[in-house]
């Protein structure tokens, strides 16, 4: 039992970053990712966009230990964590959410969060105390006794994010958190993401279809297509990129030319 994890020396690790170095992933003959490099900085929100099948989720899977890279390295701070398992990476402070919420539907909301606390080595009691605090911080006060099955869509997403924030991770990878949200709901989400980065100092990687949302919260954006990075830079750089236009609109589109 290591309740010490709660106060894991974030200041010491402050300069640590999470990075992919020349990562490639192949499934059989199919190259899902090729020579992808990117770096997520603590306290900042980075966007990752790209058309369907660009390899965004594969990127997240590699960063969180769900997929071993066939080439290249995953770096956390100074360490090569390419061969770490998913749960080990979570214990090192790399958290994620899933496209489909994937809450534990047989448990109530509080236990959904407590599972992560327990997974990080907290006692059940400690985990519950932190979970309640976290739900309050997220504005989900009073939700803890609700069953995770049958939550409204937006609440489900927020509980999933809260679960990922247990134990103060250093990095949070959000896989399409705004899918299916209305504009006002997406705006609320954007505010939450900013708070996570600023107030908790967490480095966030945001994967989204909703390019508007990404451009509104991310200082830095990486664009993937066909498993390769085709552009990286700030909002202006992305919007003016010809490669991005081609990827999204097709090479033969008049605007792309």
């Amino acid at each position, binding site marked *: 039992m290591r309740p010490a994890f709660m106060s894991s020396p974030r200041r010491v690790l402050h300069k640590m970053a999470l990075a992919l170095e020349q990562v490639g992933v192949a*499934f*059989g003959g199919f190259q899902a990712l090729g020579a992808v490099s990117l770096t997520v900085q603590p306290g900042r929100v980075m966007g990752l966009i790209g058309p369907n099948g660009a390899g965004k*989720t594969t990127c997240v*899977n590699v960063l969180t230990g*769900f*997929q071993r890279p066939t080439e290249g390295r995953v770096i956390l701070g100074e360490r090569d964590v390419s061969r770490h398992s998913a749960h080990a990476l979570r214990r090192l402070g790399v958290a994620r959410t*899933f496209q489909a919420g994937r809450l534990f539907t047989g448990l109530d909301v509080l236990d959904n969060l407590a599972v992560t606390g327990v997974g990080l080595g907290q006692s059940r009691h400690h985990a519950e105390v932190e979970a309640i605090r976290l739900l309050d911080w997220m504005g989900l006060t009073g939700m803890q006794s609700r069953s995770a099955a049958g939550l409204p869509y937006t609440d489900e997403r927020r509980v999933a994010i809260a679960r990922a924030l247990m134990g103060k991770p250093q990095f949070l990878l959000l896989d399409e958190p705004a899918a299916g949200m209305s504009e006002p709901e997406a705006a609320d989400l954007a505010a939450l993401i900013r708070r996570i980065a600023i107030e908790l100092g967490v480095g966030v990687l945001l994967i989204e279809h909703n390019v508007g949302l990404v451009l509104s919260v991310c200082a830095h954006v990486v664009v993937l297509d066909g498993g390769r990075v085709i552009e990286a830079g700030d909002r202006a750089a992305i919007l003016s990129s010809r490669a991005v236009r081609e990827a999204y609109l097709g090479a033969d589109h008049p605007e792309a030319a």
Partner: protein
Amino acid sequence: MTLQLLFDALSLGGIYAIAALGIALIFGVMKLVNFAHGQFIAFAVFALIVPSTDAVAVMGLGAAPALVLVPAILAVGAGLAVASEYLVFRPLRNASPVALMVASFALGVVIQNGLLVAYGGRPKAISLWPELGKPVALLGAEVPMLQIIVIVSVLVVLALLAVMLKRSRIGLEMRAAAEDFGMARLLGVRANAVIAGAFALSGALAATVALVLVAQTGVADVRMGGQIMLVAFIATVVGGMGSLPGAVAAGFALGAASVALQAALPIEARPFRDAFLYGLVILVLLLRPQGLFAAASAKPRV
């Protein structure tokens, strides 16, 4: 003599392969590990004789000429399997795999005790095709005619089945369903027909095993399908759940491993043969958790 060992391995492995195929077919279409398969085999064996608790068995269906007997026993096996599907497994189609498995076990208990009530507990002798009990010279080895018949019939069954699965519409649908049942349904595969077809085939395969066993051993016993079922069950997993060629290959592999161990182990260790065999199974699983012939999607999709 190595040739003789090869025949031994083929004849034992062939029985396991056919039984494994029967289990894999049903697992493929409805994720059911059918523990009643062994009792299907026993039922088909007892269908050869007249129900009675007397010590001496009186041949019923078993007295018929082979041309009538073989299709009739296959039909008995298929009929029993289809009836089981209709009465027991269809109402359970949405149940968990564990519940399905326990239900199949319960069905096995019912069939086995039904046989005990109808035929008594004493093993019975069945003289099926006694003329097969002679050795023949083949490629320098003196091979029991029985063994050759067993191997040939196993190969014929496998070939017929391969053609059927490749060529016919129901065969195509069955293979698709074994790969990914949900997808197959979306593509318009007829679920009820495929499941019933898989059960019928599986039952007929159980009956094939029954005929081969009876020809080989000459006895009928209510417990006789059990051991084969267990080995076959292991073979389907080692072969890669859902892979029909994998089940066949693993069935042959287990038969060959068993024969090889029997031949290679010193006499003191020979009674422990099965412990070695199952140890080997665990080892294979640890090295290839998805089985020898796993489908491509090895990890849970995130």
